[in-house]
């Protein structure tokens, strides 16, 4: 402790006292500023103070610059993300157009004879079933949302790092979707993303991904089918009851709404993994 006490009591540099003592030992001191050496010393003090100011100013300027660089970088990244999202959206729109064109051309080509027309009907049915064709019709919309902040305890103390309890998980969304299928939905889309037999709903970090595309809450699950039948079967079914339990336990909010007219986009046709077009066409 003596070090700290020493620091508190002898805050002043001891050499000041020493020099003063030595000076009083000498003859009556000459008025310092008058002498040449005195003037030089004043100049030195001046220079030191300018140096201190320069140091301070530079340090302040540095910190400011660093902050500017930081915010600039963040803004850059955000702009890039926005750009890419816009690009993706544009490309998705283009895909939809091209798909519609392909469908139209195919229908025109196949409408020539009865076999072709039968094929078209089969293609349409398959497209509906597989989810690659855009569909419209009546149905229900289930909107699930995270618990509002503050209604649930923050993190699970037993499993640190897990998401707060009030957050909708990927498996909750899977459950809702499966419940809708079980309630005889004919087509389902989550936040506008059409689901097919190959669509995965999973989480990466805090985000829920549908087919590798992140979703932002609220999660809107739209299902086409007979609205009355769908709603009854879903709400009374196991996943509807589970949602009600989550809602009362964790504060997750959900809402089921009937819609007379829903239109769901088609999903991208699955990538061909092993197959490739045979040379010379299909004939």
């Amino acid at each position, binding site marked *: 402790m003596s070090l700290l006490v020493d620091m508190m009591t002898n805050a002043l540099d001891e050499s*000041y006292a020493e020099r003063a003592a030595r000076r009083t030992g000498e003859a009556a001191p000459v008025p310092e500023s008058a002498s040449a050496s005195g003037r030089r010393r004043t100049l030195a003090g001046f220079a030191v103070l300018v140096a201190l100011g320069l140091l301070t100013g530079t340090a302040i300027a540095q910190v400011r610059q660093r902050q500017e660089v930081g915010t600039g970088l963040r803004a850059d990244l955000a702009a890039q993300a926005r750009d890419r999202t816009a690009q993706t959206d544009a490309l998705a729109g283009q895909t939809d157009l091209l798909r519609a064109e392909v469908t139209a051309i195919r229908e025109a080509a196949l409408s020539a004879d009865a076999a072709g027309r039968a094929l078209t009907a089969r293609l349409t049915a398959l497209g509906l079933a597989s989810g690659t064709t855009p569909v419209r019709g009546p149905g229900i919309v289930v909107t699930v949302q995270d618990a509002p902040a503050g209604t649930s305890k923050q993190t699970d103390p037993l499993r640190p790092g897990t998401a707060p309890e009030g957050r909708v998980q990927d498996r909750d969304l899977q459950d809702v979707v499966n419940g809708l299928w079980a309630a005889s939905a004919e087509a389902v889309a989550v936040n506008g993303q059409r689901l097919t037999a190959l669509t995965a709903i999973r989480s990466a970090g805090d985000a829920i991904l549908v087919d590798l595309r992140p979703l932002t809450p609220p999660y809107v699950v739209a299902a086409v089918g007979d609205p009355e039948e769908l709603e009854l079967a879903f709400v009374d079914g196991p996943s509807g009851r589970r949602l009600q339990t989550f809602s009362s336990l964790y504060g997750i909010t959900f809402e089921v709404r009937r819609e007379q007219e829903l239109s769901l986009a088609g999903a991208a046709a699955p990538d061909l993994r092993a197959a490739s077009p045979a040379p010379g066409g299909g004939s």
Partner: protein
Amino acid sequence: MIPALALVLGVTLGLVLEPTVPAALQPYLPIAVVAALDAVFGAVRAQLEGIFDDRVFVVSFVSNVLVAGLVVFLGDQLGVGGQLSTGVVVVLGIRIFSNAAAIRRRVFHA
């Protein structure tokens, strides 16, 4: 009056010119400023007590800045740079405050 002018001049120069500091020296700049401030507060107190000496001031200023920088540099090499700069700031801060208290006593007699 003149010292205050010198200080203002320095700060303005630093802010306006924004001299580029080599990246290697950047972590030591804030520490150097605190060390220099300590020397300045010591000088003001000595002035009020009538024992101010230019030479002591200049030497203490330069050595303070150098030693503080050296201590932090050493800490950086040992991997405890952050903690050591905290230590330097605490020690110099205490000194600045007790000198400031002495100055206050002299000026306001309170």
